[in-house]
């Protein structure tokens, strides 16, 4: 793609560097500075964000699974990526329920027998059927299972007290997800809709960052500026792959269209974000 070269030529999005280790070591010891009650508001706001996305996940999953049950391959294919986005955004919370995370979002590599493994269910099992087999044959039980799991997740999260360290740490966790499985294009290997998930993870991480930004800014304004710039950088890059710049719901190009050079270009800011956000908990004095 043209993106990389254009970038290099203009230098418009110079990657903001991490602070050198010496500066990190000299960074203020933050644990006493942020009062625990200051975290209550952002955590509550984050729970609202998660619940809102769960509501969307439930309703989109209903449409997605209905299309499968109706045997409408084309429609189910179209709904696959837009449905998953809501899950990808809230992964730090969703992953707290390991049983559901496995049945909803595990990939074939998680099982010794791969696609044939009877425990391989959820989104990626359906993805395999829709994009590899181009068929919904025998998928009704997986569709129903996914719907049940998503409803179960929704009800479990309603009653969940959000631990602040999980919420804050979630920003880094999401960028680790991106670094580990999105840049490589492993996540959605049959549908090649990885960029949707990529954006979902980035959205989720950015939401957390934005909610805690005022507190972080009190501790280290440079950190906030750096993270913001790198988020902008990643989003600018992703935007380049949108099918319609004015309509986010139109989604993204296939990950096959992303050249090796552009994958490397994405790796840079993603890795810097993962490193930087890994310090957010410490910055806010959280265990």
């Amino acid at each position, binding site marked *: 793609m043209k993106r990389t070269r254009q970038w*290099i030529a203009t*230098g418009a*999005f*110079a990657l903001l560097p991490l602070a050198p*280790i010496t500066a*990190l*070591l000299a960074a203020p010891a933050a644990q006493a500075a942020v009062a625990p009650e200051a975290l209550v508001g952002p955590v509550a706001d984050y729970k609202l964000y998660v619940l809102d996305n769960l509501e969307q996940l439930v309703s989109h999953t209903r449409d997605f699974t209905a299309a499968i049950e109706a045997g409408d391959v084309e429609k189910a294919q179209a709904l696959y990526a837009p449905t998953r986005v809501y899950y990808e955004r809230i992964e730090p919370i969703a992953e707290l329920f390991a049983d559901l995370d496995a049945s909803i979002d595990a990939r074939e590599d998680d099982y010794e027998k791969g696609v044939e493994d009877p425990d391989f269910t959820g989104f990626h099992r359906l993805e395999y059927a829709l994009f590899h087999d181009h068929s919904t044959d025998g998928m009704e039980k997986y569709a129903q299972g996914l719907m049940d799991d998503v409803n179960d997740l929704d009800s479990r999260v309603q009653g969940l007290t959000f631990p602040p360290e999980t919420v804050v740490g979630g920003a880094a966790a999401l960028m680790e997800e991106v670094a580990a499985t999105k840049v490589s294009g492993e996540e959605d290997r049959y549908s090649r809709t990885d960029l949707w998930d990529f954006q979902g993870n980035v959205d989720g991480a950015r939401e957390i960052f934005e909610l805690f930004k005022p507190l972080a800014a009190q501790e280290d304004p440079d950190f906030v500026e750096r993270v913001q710039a790198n988020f902008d950088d990643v989003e600018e890059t992703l935007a380049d792959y949108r099918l319609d710049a004015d309509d986010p719901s139109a989604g993204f190009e296939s990950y096959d269209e992303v050249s090796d050079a552009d994958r490397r270009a994405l*790796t*840079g800011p993603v*890795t810097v974000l993962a490193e930087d956000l890994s310090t957010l908990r410490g910055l806010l004095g959280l265990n």
Partner: protein
Amino acid sequence: MSQFDRHSGCPFHRRTDRSQPALAQSDASTSAHPERRRFLKGAGLTGLGLGLGGIGLGGTCPARALAATGHGQDVTSAPQEQDSQLRYPFYGHHQQGIVTPRPATGMLVAFDVLARDRDDLERLLKILTERMAFLTQGGSIPERNPLFPPPDSGILGPVVAPDGLTMTLAVGDSLFDQRFGLAGARPKRLQRMEGFPNDALDAARCHGDLALQICANTLDTGYHALRDIIKNTPGLLMVRWKQEGTVPLLPPAPGDSDGSARNFLGFRDGSANPDGDDDALMDELVWVGGDHDEPAWARGGSYLAARIIRNFVERWDRTPLQEQEMIFGRRKMSGAPLSGDGTEGKEQDVPDYRRDPEGEITPLDAHIRLANPRTPATEKNRILRRPFNYSNGVEANGQLDMGLLFLCFQADLEAGFITVQHRLDGEPLEEYIKPVGGGYFFVLPGARDANDFLGSGLLAASA
């Protein structure tokens, strides 16, 4: 204080504190007298660590002093001892890790550079230099508020021992593309590695913008160094491929001869390597100098040819010994060249091919004869080999994925590795080996001191 130090003509080796690298160039002209080698071997190598501490400086004394420790005549002599306090100076005209005696482990890591402009590239080179300077000298790892991720992986504990670590930074042909405006300063013989007839190159294990050779007594030290580099260069570097390897440690034993370590085909590898202690020879064959028709900034550097060469060991182990020896042109156990008359020579013996024009003793297509025909015309093709053996797991057919991480250094890549490999094309050994990866790189000249950084000359020359 050891026997060695009393006999050394080099004042910088009299120190007992190995934590202080020698900082001055030495003009001492001690040479490696054979009698002293013998003497020191008998003395039990007590001075080894001290002597080794001086190499890599760029001065003549340390390298020579090193040879005098009984470590042997070659860079590739089997490593004999694992001193965790062994420390090689980082700064100097040349980088370390080339004429430095090969330790028990080594790896080559190729990177893609993610830096987007020259400023970022310069920042990267400075970070790399700073981290390499620390890691190779060792020291305490910094402490940090435990609410934050620790700045060090901690796999070596609170104090990083130098452990014989050398780190050697080289640049690949692709770094000279349009990204950083370096094209005008490209070393003249730097090029993308092309496949040879017997190669089956795996794109995922070839080339790279940068290569970092990391050698140490233990692999853990190498991994620690690599993780430190990765931790400190987010957004600037991405690992492209990596291959580590080892060579067997050979503890000094009474009456044992110095010998090159064996490769996974069971043969001594490194025999007839040019003498890394011979500065004049190294200036001719290994280091780029004023006579080598290269950009001025490149002086003090060297070309690295890296090859991942799979060995079909099961098949090799089913090959008669006599045939194995004919393929190599050496006796397997001793490493001696074939003699033709049943006498058993030594690894260091020089075969006289003029007396064997038909190849009746050493076949004309024997590996060592093709690689180094030992004629006046081929003297300039000699290369300094510094390979490691690798073992990566198991192939789908149940055969071991083992082989040689071949690393060699030369002042002229074309006269060196490329010419030698072309002579080897079609050799009988090919039935048992398959090069699958690697690349060509140019080892940057050394960083002069703490105010300099690796690649400073390249950036200045292309500004």
